[in-house]
C-alpha cells in the first residue's frame, strides 16, 4: 500500500523535476552551511570546515544523484530519455525509419487482417456453453455426405444411446412470412424443445420452449432473434405479451434469442419455432423413413468423439438391417465435433492463409532486425564511447529495446490501418471467399493479437542485434565481430529468400489453378442467361398445382417481354455448386428390355425437371435428337433427354433416341412404378458439380402441365440480348403483377459462376499478394546486406584496386557475394516448396504440383530481381576511387 503510494508520488515527481531539484539544492546548501558553522565553531578555518562538511555528505553531486533517483522513477526517466533519443535518431534517418515502419506495418497489417478472417474458422469459440463437448451425428452417404438422421431411427437412437448427456435435433430452416401489417419474409428454424438446454443457450428475454409446445398439437409459440427484436419491436420488454401472425397463424412470442445466437449448421434464422415432430407417426410418415432431422448432442464428461462413435456403432449396426441390402455399404455412421461439421473444407484454406501470412511476418521481422543491425553497426563507435563513459550494458540493451519497441508500435498502428483497408478489399474481391468473411472485422481480440505481435517483433528486432553486439565492445576485436555480424545477416537473407520462394511457388500454383477454373468450359453459352428466383411460401401456395399455375403464368409473362428470346422453368440451375440439385443413383435407371445394373456401381446421376425452353435459355447444345417441344407439355407421354456422358455410358453401342427408361424409387424398398420415359434427345455435358467438382452425368425430364411434374423448387431461366439492368425491372414488374408479395432475385449466370470462383480467387489473390510483398521485402533485405558488405569492404577494394584489380574484378567480387546468397536461399526454398506443394494439392484444380514450369518461373523471377538488387551496390563498389577508399578510417 505504502509502496504503491510512494510509486505514485515518484511518478508525479517526474513532472515536477525542475522545482524539486532547486528545492533540494537549497536544502543541501543549508545543511552544508550549518555543518560548516559548527566546524568553524570547533576552530577550523571556514575553507577547511566547508571541505569537511562536503566530505561528510559524501560528495554533493553523488547525493543529488541518489536523491534524484529516489525522487522519480529512474526506469521511467530513462525510458523517456531513450524515447526522445530514439525519435531524434529516427528523424535524422527518415529513409531507414520509413522502410522499417513500412516493413513492420506490412507484416503486422497483413497478419492481423488474415487473422481476423481465419480466426472464426480456426479459433473462435462457438456461441454455446462448453462447445468443445458438442457433436453432430448421423448417417452420411454419397448423395448427402453431411450427416443427417431420419425420424424412423433417431428416436430409437436417442432412447438407447450411452455416450451423450443430452441429444437434440433441428429440422432445418425454411421461408416463412409475417403476415400481419408490413408483411416480411423471414427465415424460420424448427428445433426440439431441449435444443436450447443442450446447446446451453439462454434467451435474453423470456424462456425456451416447453415440451408441451413441442407436441404436434401444442400451443403455437415462437422465439425471435435479437435483430428482429431490435428492429421490429424496438427492444420492447413487453414483447413477451405479444403475438405474431406467421403465415396466417397467430403465435405467442415466448422469448428473445441472444445476440450471438447461431444455428448449429450456420443457417440464418430470424425466428425459431418448436419442431413439433410427431413421434408416433415416424414409422408411417415419408414412406416409413420418418422426417429428416439434424441431430446434435452433448458428450458426457470424459467421453471423446472417437469413443462416442464406437459406442454408437451397435445402434447403427442395428439400424443398418433396415437399409436395403444393396445400399448398406453406402451408409456410414458419422460422429464429429460441431466445429468440424461447421468448418468442413474451410480448414485447409484457412491454415494456408495463416501460414502464408506468418511467412510474411517472419520476413518482415527479420528485415527490420537486419535494418536495426546495420544501424547498430554504424553506431558501434557511439556505443563504445557510451560504455567507456559508464553506461551499463543493461542500459544499452534497454535502449535498443526501446528503439525497436517504438518502431514496432508505429508499425502496429499503421499496420492496423492497413489491416482495416485490407479487410475491405478482401470483402470486395471475394465476398464469399471464406466462411464468415462478410462479418470479418477488427475486434478487440484481434487488436490484442496485433499487440502481441508487436511485442514479439520488438523482441525479435531488439534482441537479435544486441545479441550480435557483445556486451563489452573492445576495439581490437572489431574484425571478428563484424564477420560474425555479416554472417548473421547473411543467414537472415537466406532465410528470407527461402521463405519467399515457397510463397512465390505456392502463389503461382494457386493462380494457375484459378485460371484453370476460369478457363473451364461451362457447357453452355452463359452470356445473356439470367436466373430469376421468386420466393413463394407454402402458406400462399399450398399445393404443387398452385406452384404450377404461378410459374406457367410467369413463364408466359416473361416470354412476352421485348428482347427475351427464351424462357423456361427448372428446379435447379448449373453449375450448381452448393445449391440444391436433385440426384439419383446410376443403378436406379432401368432401361426397358435390359438387365438392371448391379447396385453400388456407377455413382450419382443428376436430375433436372425442365420446361421446353431450358436448352435455348441456357444455350446448351442438343447433340442428337431434339429438344422438348411445346406441344408435348399437354401430352401424356413422359419424355427425357440424356446428357452426352450419360448417353455414352448407358448406350455405348446403340442409338439412345427412342429407348425407354424407368426410374426406380425406394419407398423404402425397391419399386419400379414410375412413368416410362422415352429418350428424345442427347444434350451436351454441362458443369454441374460446382467449378472444381467432378461432373456427374445427368438427365432432364419434361415438365408437363400436370401437377405431379411440379414441386416447390422452381427457378426461371431466360435468355436476352439486353443488359440485365434493363431487363430486371421489367421482370420484377411482371412478377409483381402475378403476386405483389413475392420477393424477386435476378442474377446472371456469369454472376453465379463468379461467386463460385470466390474461394479460389480469394486464395490466389491473397497468396499472390503475400508472395509479392515477400519478394519485395526479401529484395530490400538482399540489397541491404550487399550494400553493407560492399561498404564494409571499401578499404579492401581500395587495396585490391591499388594492387591492380580491374573494375570488372571488383564487380565480380561483390556480385558473387549476392548470387551466393540467392543461390543458397533459392535452393533451400525450392526444396521446401516441393515439400509444401503436397499440402496444397487439395486446393488446386487440374494443376500438377510437380510441374517444373512454375519452379522455373520462380527461379527466373528471383534471379532477375535479386540480380538487380546485388548489381546496384556492386556497381557502386566498382566505381570506388581507390585513393578515397584507402583513406577511409
Amino acid at each position, binding site marked *: 500500500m*505504502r*509502496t504503491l*503510494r*510512494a510509486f505514485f*508520488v*515518484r511518478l508525479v515527481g517526474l513532472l515536477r523535476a525542475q522545482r524539486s531539484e532547486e528545492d*533540494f539544492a*537549497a*536544502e*543541501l546548501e*543549508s*545543511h552544508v*552551511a*550549518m*555543518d560548516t*558553522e559548527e566546524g568553524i565553531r570547533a576552530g577550523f578555518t571556514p575553507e577547511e570546515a566547508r571541505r569537511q562538511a562536503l566530505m*561528510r*555528505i*559524501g*560528495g554533493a553531486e*553523488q*547525493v543529488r544523484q*541518489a*536523491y534524484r*533517483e*529516489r*525522487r522519480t522513477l529512474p526506469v521511467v526517466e530513462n525510458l523517456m530519455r531513450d524515447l526522445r533519443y530514439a525519435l531524434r535518431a529516427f528523424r535524422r534517418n527518415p529513409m531507414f525509419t520509413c522502410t522499417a515502419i513500412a516493413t513492420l506495418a506490412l507484416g503486422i497489417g497483413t497478419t492481423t487482417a488474415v487473422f481476423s478472417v481465419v480466426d472464426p474458422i480456426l479459433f473462435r469459440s462457438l456461441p454455446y456453453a462448453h462447445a468443445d463437448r458438442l457433436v453432430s451425428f448421423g448417417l452420411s452417404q454419397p448423395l448427402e455426405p453431411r450427416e443427417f438422421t431420419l425420424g424412423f431411427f433417431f428416436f430409437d437412437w436417442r432412447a438407447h444411446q450411452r455416450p451423450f448427456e443430452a441429444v437434440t435435433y433441428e429440422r432445418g430452416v425454411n421461408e416463412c412470412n409475417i403476415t400481419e401489417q408490413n408483411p416480411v419474409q423471414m427465415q424460420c428454424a424448427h428445433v426440439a424443445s431441449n435444443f436450447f438446454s443442450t446447446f446451453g443457450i439462454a434467451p435474453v428475454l423470456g424462456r425456451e420452449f416447453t415440451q408441451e409446445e413441442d407436441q404436434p398439437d401444442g400451443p403455437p409459440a415462437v422465439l425471435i432473434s435479437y435483430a428482429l427484436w431490435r428492429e421490429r419491436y424496438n427492444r420492447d420488454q413487453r414483447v413477451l405479451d405479444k403475438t405474431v401472425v406467421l403465415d396466417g397463424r397467430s403465435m405467442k412470442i415466448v422469448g428473445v434469442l441472444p445476440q450471438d445466437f447461431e444455428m448449429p449448421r450456420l443457417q440464418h434464422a430470424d425466428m425459431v419455432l418448436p419442431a413439433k415432430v410427431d413421434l408416433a407417426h415416424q414409422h408411417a410418415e415419408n414412406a416409413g423413413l420418418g422426417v429428416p432431422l439434424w441431430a446434435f448432442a452433448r458428450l458426457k464428461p470424459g467421453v471423446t468423439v472417437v469413443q462416442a462413435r464406437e459406442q454408437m456403432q451397435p445402434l447403427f449396426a442395428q439400424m443398418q438391417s433396415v437399409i436395403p441390402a444393396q445400399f448398406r455399404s453406402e451408409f456410414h455412421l458419422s460422429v464429429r465435433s460441431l466445429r468440424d461439421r461447421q468448418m468442413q473444407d474451410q480448414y485447409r484454406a484457412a491454415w494456408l492463409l495463416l501460414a502464408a501470412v506468418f511467412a510474411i511476418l517472419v520476413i518482415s521481422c527479420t528485415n527490420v532486425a537486419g535494418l536495426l543491425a546495420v544501424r547498430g553497426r554504424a553506431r558501434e563507435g557511439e556505443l563504445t564511447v557510451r560504455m567507456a563513459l559508464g553506461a551499463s550494458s543493461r542500459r544499452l540493451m534497454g535502449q535498443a529495446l526501446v528503439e525497436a519497441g517504438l518502431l514496432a508500435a508505429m508499425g502496429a498502428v499503421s499496420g492496423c490501418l492497413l489491416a482495416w483497408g485490407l479487410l475491405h478489399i478482401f470483402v470486395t474481391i471475394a465476398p464469399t471467399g471464406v466462411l464468415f468473411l462478410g462479418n470479418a472485422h477488427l475486434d478487440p481480440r484481434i487488436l490484442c493479437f496485433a499487440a502481441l505481435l508487436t511485442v514479439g517483433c520488438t523482441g525479435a528486432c531488439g534482441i537479435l542485434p544486441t545479441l550480435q553486439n557483445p556486451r563489452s565492445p573492445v576495439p581490437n576485436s572489431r574484425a571478428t565481430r563484424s564477420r560474425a555480424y555479416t554472417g548473421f545477416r547473411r543467414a537472415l537473407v537466406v532465410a528470407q529468400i527461402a521463405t519467399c520462394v515457397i510463397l512465390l511457388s505456392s502463389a503461382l500454383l494457386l493462380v494457375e489453378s484459378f485460371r484453370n477454373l476460369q478457363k473451364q468450359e461451362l457447357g453452355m453459352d452463359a452470356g445473356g442467361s439470367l436466373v430469376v428466383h421468386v420466393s413463394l411460401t407454402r402458406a400462399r401456395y399450398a399445393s404443387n398445382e398452385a406452384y404450377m399455375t404461378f410459374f406457367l403464368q410467369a413463364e408466359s409473362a416473361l416470354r412476352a417481354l421485348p428482347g427475351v428470346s427464351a424462357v423456361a422453368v427448372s428446379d435447379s440451375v448449373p453449375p450448381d455448386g452448393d445449391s440444391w440439385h436433385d440426384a439419383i443413383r446410376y443403378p436406379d435407371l432401368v432401361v426397358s428390355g435390359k438387365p438392371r445394373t448391379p447396385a453400388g456401381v456407377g455413382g450419382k446421376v443428376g436430375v433436372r425437371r425442365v420446361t421446353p425452353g431450358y436448352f435455348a435459355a441456357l444455350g446448351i447444345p442438343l447433340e442428337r435428337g431434339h429438344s422438348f417441344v411445346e406441344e408435348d407439355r399437354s401430352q401424356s407421354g413422359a419424355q427425357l433427354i440424356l446428357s452426352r456422358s450419360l448417353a455414352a455410358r448407358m448406350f455405348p453401342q446403340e442409338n439412345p433416341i427412342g429407348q425407354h427408361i424407368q426410374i426406380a424409387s425406394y419407398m423404402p424398398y425397391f419399386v419400379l412404378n414410375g412413368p416410362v420415359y422415352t429418350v428424345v434427345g442427347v444434350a451436351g455435358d454441362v458443369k454441374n458439380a460446382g467449378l472444381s467438382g467432378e461432373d456427374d452425368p445427368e438427365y432432364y425430364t419434361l415438365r408437363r402441365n400436370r401437377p405431379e411434374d411440379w414441386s416447390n423448387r422452381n427457378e426461371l431461366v431466360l435468355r436476352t440480348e439486353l443488359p440485365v439492368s434493363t431487363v430486371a425491372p421489367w421482370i420484377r414488374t411482371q412478377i409483381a403483377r402475378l403476386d405483389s408479395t413475392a420477393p424477386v432475385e435476378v442474377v446472371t449466370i456469369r454472376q453465379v459462376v463468379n461467386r463460385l470462383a470466390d474461394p479460389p480467387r480469394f486464395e490466389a489473390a491473397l497468396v499472390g499478394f503475400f508472395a509479392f510483398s515477400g519478394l519485395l521485402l526479401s529484395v530490400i533485405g538482399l540489397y541491404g546486406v550487399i550494400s553493407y558488405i560492399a561498404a564494409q569492404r571499401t578499404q579492401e577494394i581500395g587495396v585490391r584496386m591499388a594492387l591492380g584489380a580491374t573494375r570488372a574484378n571488383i564487380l565480380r567480387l561483390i556480385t558473387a557475394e549476392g548470387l551466393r546468397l540467392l543461390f543458397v536461399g533459392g535452393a533451400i526454398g525450392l526444396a521446401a516448396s516441393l515439400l509444401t506443394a503436397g499440402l496444397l494439392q487439395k486446393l488446386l484444380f487440374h494443376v500438377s504440383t510437380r510441374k517444373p514450369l512454375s519452379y522455373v518461373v520462380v527461379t527466373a523471377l528471383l534471379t532477375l530481381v535479386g540480380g538487380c538488387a546485388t548489381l546496384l551496390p556492386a556497381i557502386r563498389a566498382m566505381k570506388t576511387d581507390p585513393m578515397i577508399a584507402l583513406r577511409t578510417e
Partner: protein
Amino acid sequence: MPEKTDVWQGTLALMVLRTLESMGPLHGYGLARRIEQISGDRLQLNYGTLYPALLKLEQEGFVRSRWGTSENNRKAKFYELTRAGQGRVRKAAAEWEKTTEILARFLSPAEEA
C-alpha cells in the same frame, strides 16, 4: 574514540522515525547530528544517505516536511512525523526487538562455546 560502525541496511529509516518521534520536528542536519549523538558517536553516518531515506519516508507518507527557520536563523527544511509515521515507529520497533532477540539467541550459545 570507540570504533565506528556503518549504518546497517534498513535500520536508518527506523532511526530517523524514532528520533523524530522523541525530538519533534527537526531539519536534516539536526537529525543527522542527533542520530550520531544517540548512538554515542559510534555510528559512521554518511549524511548524504539521509536525504534519499527521508524522501522515501515522505513518499510513503510517514513524515512530512516544510520550510522553516533554524535556531541560528537559517532557512532549513524541517521534518516531522505524521500519524501514520507514529504507527510505523511502534510497529517497526516491535519488529526490530523481535529480530534482535532471535539473533541474540543464535549468538549466545556460540559465545558460550
